[in-house]
């Protein structure tokens, strides 16, 4: 059982993510922007962070950098979610050192598979 922090400012998407992952047996936490997400991560030390890129106050990339800057959060793995499928964004995502990058809209099956893979130690990219 793992701890997962979900971070997205769109409530519908947040809800969809929750519903997708609720049967997996992992413990799920929700934040609605990057700043809240960071606080949540600091507090809960999750195994995985599933975060959107476009968010107010602290966007996805900034959140990733903030997590990586903390020595004590190095084991936190991150999956980025974004509506942008542009190559440059993908590359930027991977260059920030994330474990995976999922493009919206995603299929439920694909989401679950990637989450499991990252949690089990596989790193994509």
């Amino acid at each position, binding site marked *: 059982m793992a701890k997962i922090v979900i971070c997205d400012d769109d409530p519908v998407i947040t809800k969809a993510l929750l519903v997708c992952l609720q049967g997996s047996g992992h413990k799920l936490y929700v934040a609605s922007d990057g700043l809240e997400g960071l606080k949540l991560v600091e507090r809960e030390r999750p195994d995985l962070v599933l975060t959107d890129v476009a968010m107010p106050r602290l966007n996805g990339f900034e959140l990733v950098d903030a997590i990586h800057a903390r020595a004590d959060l190095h084991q936190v793995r991150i999956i980025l979610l974004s509506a942008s499928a542009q190559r440059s964004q993908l590359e930027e995502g991977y260059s920030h050192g994330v474990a995976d990058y999922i493009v919206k809209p*995603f299929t439920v099956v694909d989401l679950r598979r990637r989450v499991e893979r990252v949690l089990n130690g596989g790193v994509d990219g």
Partner: protein
Amino acid sequence: MANVASLPPGISSEPVPRISDDLRRTLKITFWLVVGLLLSYIYSNAALVLPSWIEAPDPLFPPQAVILSVLLLTPMRRWWVYLTTYYVIQVVQGMVLASLPPWYASLSNLANVIEPLVGAALFRRFVPQSQQFTSLRAVAIYIGSVTLGSIVGATWGAASRALAGAPFEQSWPGWFLGDLLASLVLAPTIVLWVTAGRLALRPSRARLLEAVALLGAILLLGWLVFGTKIQDPDRAPALLYLTVPLLLWAAVRFGPRGLMTALSLVTVLAMASAAQNLGPFLGASSSANLFTLQLFLLGIGVPLFCLAALVRERQLAQERLQQSEERHRAVVGTLPHGAVLLFGPDLRHRFAGGHGVPEIGLLETIEGRTLHESFPEEMAKSLEPHYRAALAGASESFDLTQDDRTYEVEVLPVADADTPTGMVLLQDVTDQRRAEVLAEDNAQLEQLNRAKSEWVSVVSHEFRTPLTGIQAFSELLRDEAFPLEQVREFAADINREAERLSRMIGDLLDLERMEAGQMTITLAEVDLNVLVEEAIMSSGPDTSHHTLLRELDPTLPVLIADRDKLTQVIVNLLGNAIKYSPDGGDVTVGTSCDTSLAHLWVRDQGIGIPADDLEAIFRRYTRLESGYNVSIKGTGLGLPIVRQIAELHGGQAWAESEAGVGSTFHVTLPLKGEAGAD
């Protein structure tokens, strides 16, 4: 001398004189000097060699001519070599061949050294070596110098002779005339032929023929005058003057060199005939003949020499002028597509150069024609004020179009001593201008393209967000079992997101239509305040984090406007206010009016908008460079739609903002229904 510092030490920056060359040269000239002297002695003593020759006194003294020529052809610093050689040879010759006592030989020959020295030195002082005999001034100076030299020499020589017993006044004239004539006739001949040889000029065939004809004429005349026994010996010497036309011919057509050569030839013929006991000299005594000949040569030679110099001067000036003109033409001729024109106060083109501009018929034939004769009528009319301005001193630069070609024209004044002159520089720049316009168009297109693809990615990004919910929930419903309540809930979510997506697409289409001028509005009486309340209540955005305030003016009259569109405006502005104040705060909606306008405004306490972006936000395809750029959701179309609607009604929309404090969005609408589709 700044360059000296950069050379390595020990190396001079002046070229090293080529000593061996100079020495070789001096020796060569000395050699020719000796040869010349020997030849002249042989000539003077021809009687020793050719028995048929009766010795006749020389009208001129050849050695004098030789040494003078040498001095005239060499740099001053070497003169001492030649003069010394000459002196030694003369003294030796005098003592050996003429059996003169050593003291007399030494003394009298000093005169022979001083004389050419004085003459050449004076001449060189005023005329550079390169310009001998090329102008009247030079020739006049030469005549003066050698005259002075001859005076000095004759005086010294006659004085020496006087010491030896010959009377002074008897020796002086002969010596003077002999030396003067040698200097005036023979020396220039030698010098001019030697320098001509150095230049290696190639005369034309016609000129060669003419020279041969002249030579032939002189010889013929010479034979007639000098080669026959004359019937009337008293009148005979006057026959000399028959040679004058030929000498004139030589002077005018062949310059100083031709004249001197002809004169030398005549002299030689005269002397030869006298020595052969022929010709016009036979009647009187030999000294009288000599005198006649000498005066003839002097009297005719000097003026003709001056004339010849004048002729040469004019010739050189013409050559220089022609060269200069050719050079200028060559330079101007390299202008690729244009023309250079010079014109005067009468607008007549004095000069036309360049490749010309065939499209408007502008060629070298322009020269001599006036402005209106050279250009097509409209062009001439447009050019005329510029021409006149240039004559008055103004420089003007402009483009001119004729028959679909564009010309870049510059008309400038030219500094000219005598008359006001203008210059025209004309170049066909049609292709250049077209390229420039194309480049500009291309740049604009590229910019549009870039903006468009940016916008496309923004929009697709936004569309994908509601699609995500639709995709996820519909997949979940399809593949898994959920309690009925949740099924309903998810279905509602899908529905809502679908509507959201639909609205987005609708906004986009509306904006397209409005911008293309294809939108129609339905006018009706509308109470703005009521509309505000309705908008807030029915389709209002999520205002849970914000406090919604109203400042509605109750005296606001009824408007004639499109109800739905105004509702959209209010909804968009409210949504915007909330979007740009993510930390919550007050959002105030207000209405007011004045005599002609109704005023709607929405104020928030959000992040604010930088002053530079206050206009940009009303344009679609823009992304603000604010720090929240990536996180502000929406199509970026809300505000452009607001402005379009306002303008459709005849009103305006704008924003005011202070970064970090908040923003206020304003919309004005005319009260008296001035609305209409653009």
